[in-house]
């Protein structure tokens, strides 16, 4: 199926700025979905609030655009009722990890079968460039005019610690790897987290003097490296990309079905 067959073209043009990485992420996601062979009717996309969350409106799946930070909680309700459906939950860094941080760690812990995609552009774009929990120490933002003193955390480490059974990182530069990783995440039976590093030239780039959209995409190439590469041993500041965790654990909906059987036997 052509990528455009997954789109609701009547709702275009989209809201994203020129140079934004979200369109590339969307492209990677659709190619991943195509590779899985899933039908449009099999897929539910649930999002929260922010630039990235608007992704759902443009796609011809069952789409649920919810409230800020709570996409995973809504998605859990859908999945529990319809375990046969494939749940994809695109979120921004602020949406997933600031206001939605608690839901995020508990979704990881439960290991419910869905894919959380954290589109990390290190900024609150929709509200105009405030610092996010992933902006990092020393960055500039409209709410950090004297340089940010908040420390960031690492999505991959946190998802791993919280118990996600598939954890990966990809970027908007490495588009083939992005599609491959997302495909594997979607096909994994359990809670999958994929961090996608994606540039926001309009706010993060401008405030932090990172140059043009092209410069920012290029930077994703230079600051990252495949997991376990020799380059990482020589330069510890490089950010690794690839699949960090992939393991089998009891999946929540499957376990719930067993619970129902136990309850029915006992009653």
């Amino acid at each position: 199926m052509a990528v455009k067959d997954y789109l609701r073209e009547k709702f275009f043009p989209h809201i994203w700025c020129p140079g934004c990485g979200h369109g590339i992420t969307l492209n990677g996601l659709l190619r991943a979905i195509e590779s899985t062979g899933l039908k449009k009717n099999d897929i539910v996309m649930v999002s929260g609030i922010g630039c990235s969350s608007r992704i759902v409106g443009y796609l011809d799946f069952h789409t649920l655009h919810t409230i800020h930070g709570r996409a995973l909680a809504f998605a859990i309700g859908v999945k529990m009722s319809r375990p046969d459906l494939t749940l994809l939950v695109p979120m921004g860094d602020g949406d997933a990890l600031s206001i939605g941080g608690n839901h995020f760690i508990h979704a990881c812990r439960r290991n419910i079968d869905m894919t959380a995609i954290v589109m990390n552009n290190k900024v609150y774009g929709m509200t105009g460039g405030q610092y996010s929990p992933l902006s990092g120490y020393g960055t500039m933002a409209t709410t950090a005019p004297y340089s940010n003193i908040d420390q960031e955390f690492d999505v991959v480490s946190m998802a791993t610690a919280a118990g996600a059974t598939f954890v990966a990182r990809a970027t908007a530069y490495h588009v083939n790897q992005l599609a491959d990783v997302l495909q594997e995440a979607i096909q994994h039976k359990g809670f999958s987290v994929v961090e996608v590093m994606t540039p926001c030239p309009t706010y993060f780039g401008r405030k932090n003097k990172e140059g043009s959209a092209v410069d920012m995409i290029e930077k994703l190439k230079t600051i990252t490296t495949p997991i376990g590469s020799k380059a990482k041993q020589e330069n510890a500041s490089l950010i690794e990309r690839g699949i960090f965790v992939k393991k089998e654990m009891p999946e929540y909906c499957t376990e719930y079905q067993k619970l129902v059987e136990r309850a029915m036997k006992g009653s």
Partner: protein
Amino acid sequence: MASRLTFVQGNEACVRAALYAGLDFFAGYPITPSTEIAELMSVHLPRKGGKFMQMEDEIASICAIIGASLTGQKVMTATSGPGFSLMQEGLGYAIMAEIPCVIVDVQRGGPSTGLPTKVSQGDVNQARWGVHGDHAIIALTASNHQDVFAMTVDAFNFSETYRTPVILLFDEVVGHMRERLEIPKSGEIPLVERLKTSVREGVDYHPYLPREDGRLPMSDFGGVHRYNVTGLFHDMWGFPSENPREVHDLLRHLVDKIDSHVDEVTRYKEYYVDDAEMLLISYGASARSALHVVTDRRQHGERIGLLELQTLWPFPSALVREKTKNARYVVVVEMNMGQVLQSVKLAVGNPERIFLANRVDGVLITPADIRNILRLIQGKGV
């Protein structure tokens, strides 16, 4: 649940009624004095193939039930004041996206952590206006377990009929008190099932195009029609819209679909109202004490009556105006600083004849408390 005659807490009456109404999915978070509802759901729901989830907080609880409801399930959550505060944004989403759900608030003393184990009726106005933005809401209450059962079934029925959240505003006394409950026979109380679209697969489908009567025949989410659901103002496809005409029409639809059906959703009881010179208006646990006063004073020949409200929102203004028209004194009996009193004053002429008999110290208002206040109102002294 072999016997239909039971001796249970109000919270359990609510659980039994929800199961009777066809509840499929419950998500909640422990909080006094509503916790028994979650505990009993965890026992009974899986036995009938339903699902119970204990979520990480009340916000996740309401969001999860909304997600489940969209797929066609009957859903509920239960909480108390602090949790109800946390649920307000999700509640607004369910209003905007027109998703049926039932939210139980077993009221305790507030504000803040307040009095976790003590009674209050302080959330009446939060139920009405806790959600930001203009909207309409249905909120029901009850004073005894048979009525808790009936109102809970009504809550599901209204929720399905109008595709809206419905709030059950119980209180700690009714929630924790034990008394007799007779479970109605299957089919004895009619159940409303969700209106489904007749639009076939492959035909352009407009999930948010209401019928002329305001009802919305939606396709279950995840079914044959793919559509968008959002908390933003939206067009008939469910796609975000800022078109002033569409915004105006949607807001009017959300308000009118409930406010134009006040009569259908109004539930009340009346005792000796017709010739009452002194008319008490009460609801929930307070109404038990008020009824005690009324039956007692009637035996002494006093012309006193009680209007017990079971639907608090939309406020039944026309009913209250009609029932109070011959009363010399109207006394609102409630356990807050006068939340229903405000609505009664707005509804009734001659507000100078309206008085408040209340108690706000975490203790159930007693018949003696009410009698003392009535004597003051009548100029008899205490």
